[in-house]
């Protein structure tokens, strides 16, 4: 068990190293001199050179990479080329926003997917299952931002029940925070939930055909209790995999919803700074996102170990 955890940790760390090099390498490829962009359209060469020196952009790439990753390890993300603001706190703020949004929508998705997916699987031959299944298929097919736009026009613009967007840190006005969170979280959550529902359904279907579930029923458990006691944990592996993937993609994917609902999340920060060519910010945001994804994968790996004892001893 410990060994498996060590193994996963090693994979995680190596992945971190490789991806930081990838991200850095990619940023080097970006056209557009950040110093020039920062200085605007009519800057002189002297000014540009001065700024390049100030940002260390004139140093060898290897050195730049090392100083950047060194900073990352010390949680020092550097200073923006353009706004001259420290990047770390800025990303931290945005990340919190994105995390809350993503967490809220995943909670909605899971609350939706677990019961409905299971129900669909158990009733997959009955009309109720088929109807639910069809609804989920439609849910999967709707782009999240379209769902967002529709939700806004109904609940914010026409009914005036909820704000159409914006963001308030929960500490300042919890009520407003929740009201503002609801629609964006719903738009992401409903769509992700529909996707997740399909996976829960197929995972449960898969488990329903397992021998041990029949054993459980032969022991005298009703179908539902057999499923709950023996099936769900075994169905969890594929569901957790998808959940992990969804979490990972959502951190970036939420940018669309952030745009619709005017939420200052991490995705928007990335998009804005690509536009501004604030290279160092872009680099940091991408890296933070990648770390988040790898972290999610890592946690998912550990969850596998928690869920399935076979993985603890057998090598994959």
């Amino acid at each position, binding site marked *: 068990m410990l060994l498996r955890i060590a193994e996963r940790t090693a994979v995680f760390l190596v992945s971190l190293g490789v991806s930081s090099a990838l991200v850095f390498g990619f940023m080097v490829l970006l*056209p*557009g001199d950040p110093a020039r*962009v*920062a*200085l*605007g*359209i*009519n*800057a002189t060469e002297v000014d540009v050179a001065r*700024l390049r020196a100030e940002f260390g952009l004139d140093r060898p790439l290897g050195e730049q990479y090392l100083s950047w990753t060194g900073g990352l390890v010390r949680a020092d993300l550097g200073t923006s080329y353009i*706004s*001259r*603001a420290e990047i770390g*706190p*800025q990303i*931290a*703020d*945005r990340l*919190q926003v994105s995390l*809350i949004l993503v*967490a*809220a929508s*995943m*909670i909605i998705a*899971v*609350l939706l997917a*677990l*019961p409905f997916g*299971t129900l669909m699987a158990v009733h997959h031959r009955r009309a109720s299952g088929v109807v639910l299944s069809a609804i989920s298929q439609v849910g999967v097919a709707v782009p999240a931002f379209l769902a967002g*736009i529709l939700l*806004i026009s109904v609940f*914010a*613009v026409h009914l*005036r029940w909820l*704000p*159409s*967007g*914006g*963001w*308030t*840190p*929960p*500490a*300042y*006005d919890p009520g*407003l925070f929740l009201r*503002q969170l609801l629609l964006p979280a719903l738009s992401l959550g409903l769509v992700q939930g529909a996707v997740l529902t399909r996976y829960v359904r197929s995972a449960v279907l898969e488990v329903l055909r397992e021998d041990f579930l029949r054993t459980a029923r032969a022991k005298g458990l009703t179908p539902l209790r057999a499923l709950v006691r023996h099936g769900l944990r075994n169905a969890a592996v594929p569901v957790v995999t998808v959940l992990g993937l969804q979490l990972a993609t959502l951190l970036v994917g939420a940018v669309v919803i952030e*745009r*619709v*609902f*005017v939420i*200052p*999340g991490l995705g*928007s*920060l990335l998009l*804005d700074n*690509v*536009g*501004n060519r*604030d290279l160092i910010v872009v680099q940091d945001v991408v890296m933070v996102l990648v770390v988040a994804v790898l972290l999610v994968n890592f946690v998912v790996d550990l969850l596998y170990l928690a869920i399935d004892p076979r993985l603890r001893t057998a090598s994959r």
Partner: protein
Amino acid sequence: MTHHLPRLLAPLAALALAVTACTAGSSTAPAPAGSSATTAGGSSDRITLGLVAEPASLDFTKSDGAAIPQALLVNVYEGLVKLDQDGKIVPALATSWKVSDENKTYTFELTDKAKFTNGTAFTAADAVFSINRVKTDWTTSLKAAMDVVAEAKAISPTQLQVTLSAPSNDWLYRMTTHLGAMFSATGVDDLANKPIGTGPYTFTSWNRGDSITLTRNEAYWGTKPHYQSVVLKYFKDPTALNNALITNAINVVTTVQAPEALGQFTGNSKYQVIEGTTNGEVLLSFNNANEIFKDKRVRQAIRHAIDHKALMETCWAGKGTLIGSFVPPTDPWYEDLTGVTPFNKATATSLLTQAGKLGATLRLRVPTLPYAVSCGQVVKAQLEAVGLKVTLDQLEFPATWLEQVFRGGDFDMSIIAHVEPRDLKAVFGNPAYYTKYGTPEIQGLLKAADEGSVDEQTAKLKQVGRLLAEDAAGDVLFLLPNLMVADAGITGLPQNAIAVAFDLSKLGKR
């Protein structure tokens, strides 16, 4: 299943709480007022404005971009002079000024009441410091306009004398922009994060990606503004901006990005719609260095090919002004030149035929801005209707567009609104500019206008305007309107957007 739900929920809720707790302690926590956008409508102390482009930085001495002075100039920073709604230069920190020595020496009388928000009083020394600092510390393109200053000196704490190396009508005008912003000699350490000025508002917080909050400067030397705090809230999405107004999240939409959407506000007593004019000439620019544009007939053909009325109708819902030149009506040398090259497809086609360029392919590369994207499609369709081929692509704004079109010159035509005031010289007086235009004749006229008297200036610039139209150096599609929507009770909103600043000090409530 139901038994399992609470158990499942608990850890997730805990997670959410943990994240929440972090926010409260975060380092750049915005002030409560600035962070929220709702409930603004109910408070007489606070007004929230919806804007489109968020600044990348707060330091306009280092970063270009109209968004910074739009928010800070006149409001946080003040200049010696400023522009009024009709485009006239009026006093600000300078109560009056005299010009002498063949228009080369300016003597400003300064107010003695003004105080910077760091507590120090505003004096002529600060003015000298600010003017000199442009040359030494500024890195933006605007600084070039200060090159004409030979010397600035404080005669007394309230008297400033500026000597120009050559007469320039333009210099004083530029002093109304952020170039003329007055900084405290002891308050420029952290302009990117802590702007210090003498204005009616002080900078309070910037919740990046969301809003900037300004608070009334209770120690302001002039008339104090009505609102205790002003929130400038930035929206990337025009629909979200409109929705925010509808749902009372903001009080003012400062720039209507989709004029078609005005329909939902006009005729509704809850809202007022403000239509004025701007400096934003939407220019269909030609890369005059390209072979094809060296032929005047091609340039004229394009002007003839475009049905400006239909274009404005289609891409900007008919809002705006057709001017036919590069001079907005708020400039004294404005002249309606829409008749110079009237819309005529046949003329266009025959000009192209004469030039032997019928069927030629032109690359129209527009920035990712709503009007440019919209107009680009119309221009493409209209040019193709007279026998040109147009490939349209869209370049991310600002970076890619600046890189490829503006600096790289890798384009045939582009569309962008030149919103800087009095930018005739910048755009068409400089062969190195991306328009690659600036004949000696034009340059001569521009120089004469700058150095001459006010009347001479007006006459010469009129001439420039006409010359540009006749030579078809570019095609001004239309002048962007100043379209705002606001809650009905808001007063003091600027009718025209012709200055770089958005003056928040007059805002009030009926």
